[in-house]
C-alpha cells in the first residue's frame, strides 16, 4: 500500500521536465524516421510559445520544422493531407482550445477519412494540444476538451500526467498509424520527474498506470488531477486510509480492466478530471464502472470535474472552478461514509 514509481524498475532515467521530455521524444522520433516532421505556429526559431520545440529547428531545419502563419485549419487539415501521402506530421496547436478552430479537420478528416474510404487511407498524425489551466489564460485558452475526442470514433486520445509518460506516450503516438490527439498539460511543462533516457522507451496505449495502491477506494484521475489525487491520498494515508489511484493515461483506448479490477476490490470509486464535469470523460468512466461492477459497489460512483462555467481569466478565480486536492480529499471522505 503506497506510492508507485513513475518508471518501471531498472530503467535508466534522467531528471527532466515534462516539456523537455516531450522535446526529447520529438527529437528522437525525428532522428529515427525521416518521414516525421512538424508544423505549427512559432515552433521554429522561437521553439514554440511554451518552448517545447526549442532546438529542433536548429537540428532538423526549416523544411522539417515548419512555422505556419495563423491557420489552424491548414495545420490540422494539412497534416491530414500530408499523412495520406507518405509523411508523418506532428503538429502543434498553441492551445488545445484551437482544436475547435479546426473542428472539421479533427473530427471529420482525421477521425473519419480512413473509414469513409474503406480502410484504403491511413492518417498517421499527432496533434499536440497544450491543455488545461496555466494561470490567467482565460476561457478560450484553458479548456480541457478530451471528451470531444473520446466521443468521436477514430481518434486516439492521450493525456500524459508525468514527464516519463509524456515522453513514452508521445513516441508511441508518433509510431501509431492512427490519428492521435495528444493533450499535454501546459500547466505541467515545468514539472520534473525521472524520464527514461532510452531511444525506444514506449508507453503502450490502453494500459492504465496504478499510481498508488490501496484498498479503501479507487480514484481514477487524469492529467493535472493525478498529482492532486496523489496529494489527497497522501493526506488520507496519514490516517491509515489507503486510496488506489489509477491514471488511465489514454482514454481512447481506455483500460477499463485495471479500473474494474480495482473497484471490485475497493467497492468505491471517484473519477476526477479537470474538464467540465458535465458530459466529461468521467461520465463515461463512471457509467462503465457501474455497468461492469455494479454488484461489487458499496456506494455510487462519484465524479469531480470543473464547474459548469467557462474558465475565468484571473489565476485565483480559475482555481476555484477546477477540482483541488482538498476537494478530492473531502469527496473521498464523504464517499467512505456511504
Amino acid at each position: 500500500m503506497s506510492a508507485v514509481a513513475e518508471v518501471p524498475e531498472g530503467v535508466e532515467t534522467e531528471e527532466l521536465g515534462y516539456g523537455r521530455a516531450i522535446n526529447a521524444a520529438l527529437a528522437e522520433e525525428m532522428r529515427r524516421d525521416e518521414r516525421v516532421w512538424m508544423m505549427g505556429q512559432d515552433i521554429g526559431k522561437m521553439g514554440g510559445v511554451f518552448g517545447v520545440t526549442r532546438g529542433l529547428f536548429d537540428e532538423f531545419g526549416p523544411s522539417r520544422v515548419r512555422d505556419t502563419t495563423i491557420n489552424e485549419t491548414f495545420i490540422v487539415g494539412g497534416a491530414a493531407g500530408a499523412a495520406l501521402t507518405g509523411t508523418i506530421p506532428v503538429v502543434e496547436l498553441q492551445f488545445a482550445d484551437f482544436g475547435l478552430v479546426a473542428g472539421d479537420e479533427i473530427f471529420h478528416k482525421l477521425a473519419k477519412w480512413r473509414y469513409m474510404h474503406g480502410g484504403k487511407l491511413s492518417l498517421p498524425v499527432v496533434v499536440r494540444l497544450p491543455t488545461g489551466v496555466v494561470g490567467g489564460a482565460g476561457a478560450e485558452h484553458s479548456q480541457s476538451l478530451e471528451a470531444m475526442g473520446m466521443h468521436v470514433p477514430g481518434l486516439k486520445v492521450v493525456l500524459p500526467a508525468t514527464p516519463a509518460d509524456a515522453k513514452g506516450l508521445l513516441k508511441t503516438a508518433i509510431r501509431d498509424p492512427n490519428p492521435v490527439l495528444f493533450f499535454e498539460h501546459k500547466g505541467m511543462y515545468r514539472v520534473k520527474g525521472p524520464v527514461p533516457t532510452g531511444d525506444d522507451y514506449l508507453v503502450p496505449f490502453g494500459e492504465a498506470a496504478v499510481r498508488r495502491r490501496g484498498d479503501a477506494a479507487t480514484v481514477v484521475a487524469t492529467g493535472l488531477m493525478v498529482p492532486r489525487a496523489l496529494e489527497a491520498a497522501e493526506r488520507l494515508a496519514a490516517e491509515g486510509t489507503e486510496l488506489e489511484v489509477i491514471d488511465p493515461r489514454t482514454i481512447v483506448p481506455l483500460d477499463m480492466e485495471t479500473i474494474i479490477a480495482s473497484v471490485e476490490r475497493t467497492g468505491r470509486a471517484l473519477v476526477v478530471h479537470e474538464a467540465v464535469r458535465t458530459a466529461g470523460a468521467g461520465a463515461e468512466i463512471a457509467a462503465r464502472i457501474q455497468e461492469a461492477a455494479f454488484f461489487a459497489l458499496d456506494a455510487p460512483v462519484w465524479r469531480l470535474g470543473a464547474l459548469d462555467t467557462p474558465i475565468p481569466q484571473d489565476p485565483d478565480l480559475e482555481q476555484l472552478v477546477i477540482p483541488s486536492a482538498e476537494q478530492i480529499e473531502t469527496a473521498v471522505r464523504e464517499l467512505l461514509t456511504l
Partner: protein
Amino acid sequence: MSTKTEQGGGGAGEAEVALELYRQVARIRALELLLNRYVREHGFGGFWHPGLGQEGVQAGAVAALRHEDYLFYAHRGLGYALVKGMAPEVLLGDLFGRVGGSVGGKGGGTVHFVDPELGVLGQGGTLGSNFVLGAGAATSVQLLGEDRVVAIFFGDGAAARGTFHEAALQAAVWKLPIVWVCENNGWHLSALFSAQSPTEDVADRAAAYGVPGVVVDGQDALAVRAAVLEGAERARGGEGPVLIEAKTLRIRGHYEGDPQKYRDDIADGLEVPRDPLQILRERVPAGEADALDAAAGAEAEAALEAALAMPKGGPEVATRDVWS
C-alpha cells in the same frame, strides 16, 4: 487507362490529344446519361450530384495530370476519377454502396471513392476541406522531393470557405505544387455565384495570394487541358500554385431530383449548351467519334450491370476500417 494520363503529361500530338479527350468526355457523358436515367427511375441511397455539361472541365483538367499526380476531386460527377483511371464499375459500386466499390459503401455524404495507387485521394464531404488536405499533400511532395503536382477541384461556392484562404496563403508562401481547378458552373446549390461573389471571377481572388489566376472556357476540354498543363508545369518547376477557373454550366439540379424552383434560367432537360462533346467532335474524324460513342455507351451499360450485381456489405463491413 494510365496510358492516357501519361499522354496528358507528355507532348502528345494535337489530333491524338483531341481524340483522347473526346474518348474521355464521351465516357463521362455516357455514365452521366445512364445514371440520370437510373437514379430518376430507381433512386438510390444517397445524393447524386450530376456533372452533365461539366465533362469538358473534368476530362480536360485530369487529362493534363500524370499518373503519379494527386487528385482531390469535387462532388459533381464521376468524371474526375474515371479519367484518372478508376474503373467505371468500381465508381458505380461506390455510388450504390456495394462492397465492390472502392470504399465498400462507407463513403460520406455524396459519393466518395479512392485509389491511392492512381493518386485519387478523396473529396471533403464538408466543402473546402480539399484546400487544406491538398495543400498538406503538396507539402509531403515537397518534403519528399517528389515530382508530382496536386490537383484540387472545387466549385464556385466552395471557394468561399475560409480553408481556401488559410491554405492558399501558406501554399503561395511555401510555393507548393498545386493546381486549383475551380469548376464555376454559376451556382452553388440555389445561390447564383453572381449574387454571392463581389467580383466577376473566382480567378480575381488569385491576386490576394500572389499567384496566377486564369479563366478558361470549361466547355472546351482542349483549352482546359492546355491551361492545366501549363499550370502543372509551373508548379512542378517550384514556382508555386496556380488558380484555374473553368467557366461551365450546371445543366441539372444540384442533386438529381432537385425541383430547382429557385431557378428560371434553363429548362429541365438534358441538352447541353456549348456541349463539350460537340466542340471536340469538330476536331476528330466523325467515324472515330461514332466508334468512341458506341464504346463509351457499352462501357457504361456494362459497368452499371456489374455494379448492380455487386453485393452490399453487412455488419462486418459497417464496423471495420475505423482503425489502421
